[in-house]
Each structure stands twice: as C-alpha cells, then as structure tokens.
C-alpha cells in the first residue's frame, strides 16, 4: 500500500532559526498520527508545509501521489485543514461560511446543500448556524473550524491542536468525531495534551526543536518510560522496614523504591530486572507474609515521563555540544 502522505527530509528556516530540521515520515489511510512536542517545536510549521501554506526550504511533500511543489491545487483538494487557533471569517454566520468553503471546494447545488447539512449535524452546530461567528463561544468556533475541514470529505485531515482551549466535554466530542473518521482517512493532529495521544492516536511522533525524536505507537512510546513494567504495591503497616527488605530479596527485581507513607499505609515501587512485570512474585510474597495489601498495580509507563525524558535529553545534548564547541 502506498502512503497517503509522504514527507521526506522536510526543512524550514526562519532567518537563522531552524524551525523544522530534516523530518521524514509516512502516513497511511486508517492511521491517526499525533504530533507531540513542546510549544515552538515545529509541529505547526510542519503542518503548514504539508498543507502548502509555507514553502519548504528543502525536502518534499507528496499527498496521494501529487507533489505539493508541482501540483499544489491537486494536493490542497485532498486535504482538510484546521489551522492553529481555528481562524474564521468572524463577520459571517456558520451557515454562510460553510457554504463559502463548500463552493470553494467545488461543491455545487444539491450536493453542496447535503454536505453543509451533514457537517452541521456531525459537529452539532444546529443551534448557532445563523449567528455571526464572532459572537460564538470558543467551543463552537472550533467546531465550525472542524466542519470546514471535513466538508469535502477529504482523504487527508490535518488538525493543528483541535482540542486546544475546549472544556472536557467538548474535548471528548471532538475526539470521538476524529475516532469516527479514523478508518477512512489519514489523519495528522498535533497536541501537547498527552492523554489525547492515548485516546485517539494509533501512532505518535515526538518533535522538539524541529527534530523528530521518537516515532511509534503510544504503547511503545510509553514503554520507554523508566517506570514501565514496575509494580506499585500499597501495604497497611506501621513498620515499612521489614517489608522493604523482603521485597528486595525477590529474584526477578532490580530495585525497590519506597514512596509516600500516610494513614498507616506505605507504598513501594518495585522495578523489574527482566522485561516482565514482577507482579506474580510480589503477589505471592504478599500472600506468604500475610501483608494487608491495599493496592497492587502494574505501571505501564507514562507518556509524559517519556515526553520529558526525550525532549529534555535533547536539550542537555545540545548544551553539551555547545560547551564542547566553546572549549575546543
């Protein structure tokens, strides 16, 4: 299967600043790719180059077999795009605005009316279609932005921070909308909310300082966390010392870390020495010693730990390089 979106060696400079540095990836139909990264990492710039708003300094973007540099209109026809902050013509009503977008997307007559009606229903805009966009709440504005992105049923959907500034219910709605479309499209979205990646993305990429640092399924990224496969156990006891000693005697563990103690309960974090979580041996030990176990769970690893580890490691590496340069 050929990739729907194919980005290779994409680079963009703004003056001396390198916003995007040699990024390559492919997205297939049915994939939801999440761009993760701190603010200013180059997520939006990458999206702007894929959608043809910015011209790359180097590298190519191929969407559905067409190159953005040589046939921009063909590429833009395939893409639905929600720019960062969902800019809209605020003096128009959602109805007028969606008709405008539908027409500029080449929809006419009955089909246009049907599509406009469909998207209004899909994103629940019925109650505000005749109100000027400038008077709408942030959540409604974002939904109008989403509606214009999907009105022509594009093969590729690019969403720059689709849930930014929405309340939890609205976030949930937008995420289910994305999930509903996921199987039929290639979707790229950016976010700095990590749980969103778990919720909607089939694949995630971490970008920082314009570089691609990690690429994989959310689970495989989470597995890079130092906490991955460690077991957390909470025991009701007044004297944590013997418990700690017993845990350390287990064969398949690397180390034991004592966490907080409160209300007569003590928590321990047991790190595995293998690629399996030592949950059965810890459980067996607890039963043998007759501990009062309040909680026992396996840590799968947290995205934000990985995120912080990956993005700050790079910063440290950069500082080292700068120091070496300074000393040599």
């Amino acid at each position, binding site marked *: 299967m050929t990739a729907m979106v194919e980005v290779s060696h994409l680079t963009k400079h703004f003056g001396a600043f390198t916003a995007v540095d040699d990024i390559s990836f492919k997205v297939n139909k049915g994939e939801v790719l999440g761009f993760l990264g701190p603010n200013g990492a180059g997520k939006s710039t990458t999206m*702007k180059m894929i959608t043809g*708003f910015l011209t790359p300094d180097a590298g190519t973007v191929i969407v559905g077999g067409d190159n953005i540099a040589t046939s921009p209109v063909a590429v833009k026809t395939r893409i639905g795009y929600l*720019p960062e902050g969902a*800019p809209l*013509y605020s003096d128009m009503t959602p109805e007028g605005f969606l008709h405008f977008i539908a027409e*500029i997307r080449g929809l006419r007559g009955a089909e246009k009316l049907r599509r406009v009606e469909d998207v209004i229903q899909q994103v629940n805009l019925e109650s505000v279609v005749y109100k000027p966009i400038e008077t709408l709440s942030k959540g409604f504005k974002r939904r109008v932005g989403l509606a214009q992105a999907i009105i022509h049923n594009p093969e590729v959907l690019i969403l720059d921070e689709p849930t930014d500034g929405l309340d939890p219910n609205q976030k949930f709605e937008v995420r289910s909308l994305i999930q509903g479309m996921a199987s039929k499209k290639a979707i790229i979205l950016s976010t700095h909310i990590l749980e969103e990646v778990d919720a909607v993305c089939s694949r995630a990429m971490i970008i920082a300082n314009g570089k691609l640092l990690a690429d994989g399924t959310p689970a495989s990224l989470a597995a890079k966390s130092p906490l991955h496969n460690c077991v957390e156990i909470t025991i009701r006891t007044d004297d944590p010392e013997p418990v700690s000693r017993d845990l350390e005697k287990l064969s398949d563990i690397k180390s034991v870390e004592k966490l907080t103690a409160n209300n007569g309960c003590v928590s321990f974090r047991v790190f595995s020495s293998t690629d399996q979580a030592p949950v059965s041996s810890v459980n067996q030990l607890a039963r043998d010693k007759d501990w009062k176990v309040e909680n026992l769970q396996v840590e799968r690893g947290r995205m934000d730990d990985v995120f912080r580890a990956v993005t700050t490691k790079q910063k440290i590496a950069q500082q080292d390089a700068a120091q070496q340069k300074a000393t040599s």
Partner: protein
Amino acid sequence: MANIWVIFKRELASYFTTPIAYIFIIIFIFLSGIFAFYIGNFFDRGQADLAPFFNFHPWLYLFLIPALAMRLWAEERKSGTIELLLTMPITMTQAVLGKFFAAWVFTTIALSLTFPIWITVNYLGEPDNGVILAGYIGSLLMAGAFLSIGSCVSAMTRNQVIAFVVSAVICLMFVLSGFPMVLDFFSLWAPEFIVTAISSFSFLTHFEAISKGVIDLRDIIYFISLISFWLFANAVLIEYKKAD
C-alpha cells in the same frame, strides 16, 4: 473563473455585513455632492455638465479608496484567515482577482448611487450625456487604479492603519505628478521629456482626458496596465510573505 466568483461573492457580501459599506456609500455621496455644489460652484457656472463633480473625484478617492482597500489582505493576515484561504484549492491569482473585483464592484455601486446629480443636470439643462458617461468610465478606471495600489499595500502588512497611510501616500504621488504646481516646478529646470514623462504617470492627466469625453485607447491602456502591475506585485508579495 468559478473560484474567482466564489471569492468575489464572499468579499463583496462582507462589505455589507459590516457597517463599512453603508458608511462608505453615504460619505461618498455626501462629499461628492458638497464638492460639486459648493466648492465646484455647480449652479453658478451656468453650464450643463458634470465637470465640477468629476474634478474632485481624484481627491475624494485619495482617502476613501485606501480606506476601502486597507482591509483586503491586512485583515486576513491579522485574523489568520489567510492561512485558511491559501490552503484552499485555489491559485494566488484567483484570490487576488476575486478580492480586487469585489472592491471594484463595490466602488461601482457607490459611484452609480450618485445618479441624482446626473438627473439634476438633465433636469436643469441639456448636457452631453456621452461626456458624462465617459466621466463615469474614467472615474471607475481611476478608482480601479487606486484600489490596486491599496490592495497591494494591504498585502504587505497586518496593520490596517499602516496600509491606509502608505497607500494614500502612494496614491497622492500618482495624483500629484500631474498637478500644474508640480509640473511647473519641474518645467523650470527639467527637459521637456521628463516633464511629459512625469505628467504621463499621473492619474489626473489621464482621468481629465477621459472625462472631457475623449476616450483614448492609450488612457484606458494606462489604467489597465497600472492595475495589472499592482495586482501582479500584490500576488508576488503574498506568495513570498505568506506567514509573516
């Protein structure tokens, strides 16, 4: 062509969803009336023509047209909708032309609403309506030239006030280069061909020629090529400064 039409419709409608259209039309009609009747001595001249009406159009346009054109691109930049517009499957030429024609047709609407003065002059005397028609055509072409400058300048900035001031100054230069005072100053020391060159760049020279009833192809070509040049510059500017 279809895309130009879609952009044109949206742009023209947006003048009327805000008070801009109504304020512009009222002020335009009011001022053109004042200029013609009081400063131009429409009645005292005792002549059945609209010369006093058309003579003030360059000066009226000088500040009204930049006010109309300043929002064309600066507002798109400011609100970020330029990113939306330019990621639609359209070409830059279509976007520039759609917007320009919307502003031009809007000016045509405003200008055509000055028809009472034409009725007045026909009621009072027997004017040469051919000359008056030529005056309207000349005025429209000149408005188009002002608009193309305004549109191009508006593409350079996200600040509408800057767009207004800069395009007004550029328009002023194009008007003044045919002003007798300026030409006299140059004719004192500059050779004849330079004076002619300067005056041939002026809106005034070409507009006055047309509004006297002489529709010379050269005057029309002058305005059309001026409009084309500024719109071309407009498209190039946006292409290279999209994200700024």
